[in-house]
């Protein structure tokens, strides 16, 4: 068991002028499940591969526990990794796949056998130990890849989108299994995904990256309730938060034909416009407020989602709102929305940074 620390870790690919990972500062506690999430090309996989030793670190340091591993080769870092395509050895049986690392380390044969058996029992793979990977289903292969990591009893687990090759149902099931397995083993885990639902449901903490720069690290709850900037606000949550560019007026923000009150101090530094974020479930139907013409109504039973358009000046802005599923507004009609009090996020229109308010 160990902590993991990225200390201004930077990766610049040869020939590139912009770092893939830019001065990443991140501390992961012992036994913590940290999820790195972001859109493709954001540097999340690169960060993980830097920790694994598969990518060079061009600046800064990476520590596992108190040990600086920046230049240590992968095999000496005491880590185990689960790859997106599992990277099983096709010519070896499941048992040999799982025991390969121990075999190289010179562990006695009966010890290897015992530990492989143990891992197979945890992962329900006991009947498949003599099979080759090609005779396994996708889910079973995924479990073998997990088993290969568990058998090592490493200090840190690294997982690079291990669920993205599974079908939707299996993915949800395996998601829970991995999370509970990690809690049980208590091994520090860094998990990479592009799926924000996976990030929110599995992680103790979530780190959002964009363009190689860390945007925010927080618990899933805090990330959802208190996004640091426009990017995090739009990325976390499904359906996504409504991010509306609205004019600033005396006493607050102009919200259709009403005014959303904001204290003067918070608005002091902003220009003419401000970005106002409201989650779909925090939009309420009202007499006055934001006029939205309804384009599509998605009825899900208890709830319905309205996909509409806010026409303001020359620009059209898409708006999503959750309403009561029993009496949703009709398609093509125009309805008014008000945000729930205390559930409005304000962001600077230029920098995209969060503006703290007391309301």
């Amino acid at each position, binding site marked *: 068991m160990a902590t993991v620390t990225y200390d201004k870790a930077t990766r610049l690919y040869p020939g590139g002028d912009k770092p893939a990972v830019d001065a990443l500062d991140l501390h992961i506690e012992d036994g913590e499940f940290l999820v790195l999430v972001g859109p493709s090309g954001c540097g999340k996989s690169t960060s993980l591969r830097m920790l*694994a030793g598969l990518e060079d670190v061009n600046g800064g340091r990476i520590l596992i526990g108190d040990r600086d591993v920046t230049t240590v080769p*992968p*095999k000496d870092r005491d880590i185990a*990794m689960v*790859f997106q395509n599992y*990277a099983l*050895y*096709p*010519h070896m049986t499941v048992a040999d796949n799982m025991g390969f*690392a121990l075999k190289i380390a010179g562990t006695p044969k009966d010890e290897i056998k015992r530990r492989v058996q143990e891992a197979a029992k945890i992962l329900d793979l006991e009947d498949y130990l003599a099979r080759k990977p090609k005779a396994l289903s996708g889910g079973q292969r995924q479990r073998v890849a997990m088993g290969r990591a568990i058998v090592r009893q490493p200090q840190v687990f690294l997982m690079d989108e291990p669920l993205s090759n599974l079908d939707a149902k299996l993915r949800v099931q395996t998601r829970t299994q991995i999370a509970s397995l990690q809690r049980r083993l208590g091994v520090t885990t860094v998990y990479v995904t592009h799926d924000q639902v996976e990030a929110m449901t599995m992680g103790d903490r979530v780190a959002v990256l964009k363009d190689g720069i860390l945007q925010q690290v927080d618990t899933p709850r805090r990330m959802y309730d208190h996004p640091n900037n426009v990017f995090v606000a739009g990325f976390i949550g499904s359906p996504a938060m409504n991010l509306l560019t609205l004019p600033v007026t005396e006493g607050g923000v102009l919200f259709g034909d009403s005014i959303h009150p904001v204290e003067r101090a918070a608005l002091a530094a902003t220009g003419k416009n401000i970005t106002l974020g409201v989650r779909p479930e925090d939009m309420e139907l009202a007499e006055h407020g934001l006029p939205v013409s309804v384009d599509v109504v998605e009825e899900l039973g208890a709830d319905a989602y309205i996909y509409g358009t806010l026409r303001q000046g020359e620009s059209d802005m898409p708006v999503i709102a959750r309403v009561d599923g029993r009496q949703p507004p009709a398609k093509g009609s125009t309805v008014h929305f008000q945000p729930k009090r205390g559930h409005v996020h304000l962001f600077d229109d230029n920098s995209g940074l969060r503006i703290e308010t007391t309301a």
Partner: protein
Amino acid sequence: MSAVLAPERSVRPVPPPAPVRRSRGFLRRLPVRALIAVILVIEVYPLVWLLLSSFKTRREFVEEPFWSLPSSLAWGNYAEAWTTGNIGLYLRNSVLAVAPSLALIIVLGVAAGFALEVLVWKGRGTVLLIFLAGIMVPGQMILLPLFSAYFQLGLTGSLWPLIITYTATGLPLTVFMMATYFRAIPREVFEAAAIDGATVLRAFVSIGFPMVRNAVFTVALVQFFFIWNDLLIALTFTNSTELRTVQVGLLNFNGQFGATDYGPLFAAICMNVFGLLAIYLVLNKRIMAGLAGGAVKG
């Protein structure tokens, strides 16, 4: 489900009566079958002719037309090829030249393919390019300079010139093909091996080589036939009867009195050709089995 399928079933054409279809199918397939028959005759007839001729006596060669059957099985031809014709010695020379060359080509070629495709180092693209350039050098061009080099090194008079030349000319294609096969293996497999604690050598022996094993067999088979059937290089570098390989031996195959003796010559060719055919059939079966067994489902 059934509702969707039902209309499809009704529009399916009624199959025509069986005899009509069979004769039409036969006619349609006739050109293809005829073509196959012609190819088969072109391929097989010379072999049969070769085999039959190897049993003919000298008188039969002179007096009978060349397509006639032998009147009896003259096994003596084989004995003569072996004793007077020195075929045993030539076969031994061929094996002594081909086996080490092939081993070197495979060991060096597979290792180089691994190093060029799996390992990351500066200049590997250039090195691969140089190997590729080697494919384009015509063998005839380098023979004389090589001969004088071997002579100055004192290697002539042994099989070493053959072994070195075969290895050198066989490597470019082998390296190129092995690099291609290694490229097809996902990088993550080797990264997983590195994280599992494998050194480069271990990753090559335990992971890389087994994963391209079938490709190695295929390449080895192709190279084996190239080298075994080589005449030009062997002819250039063998300067005494004792060093002749099978192909050179067959070229200079003379009977006791210097005249070409067709019976024993055909017997000697038969030993070479059918020996190779047997090796090919055995290995081919194994390769086919290996390829099918290694197939990966998506």
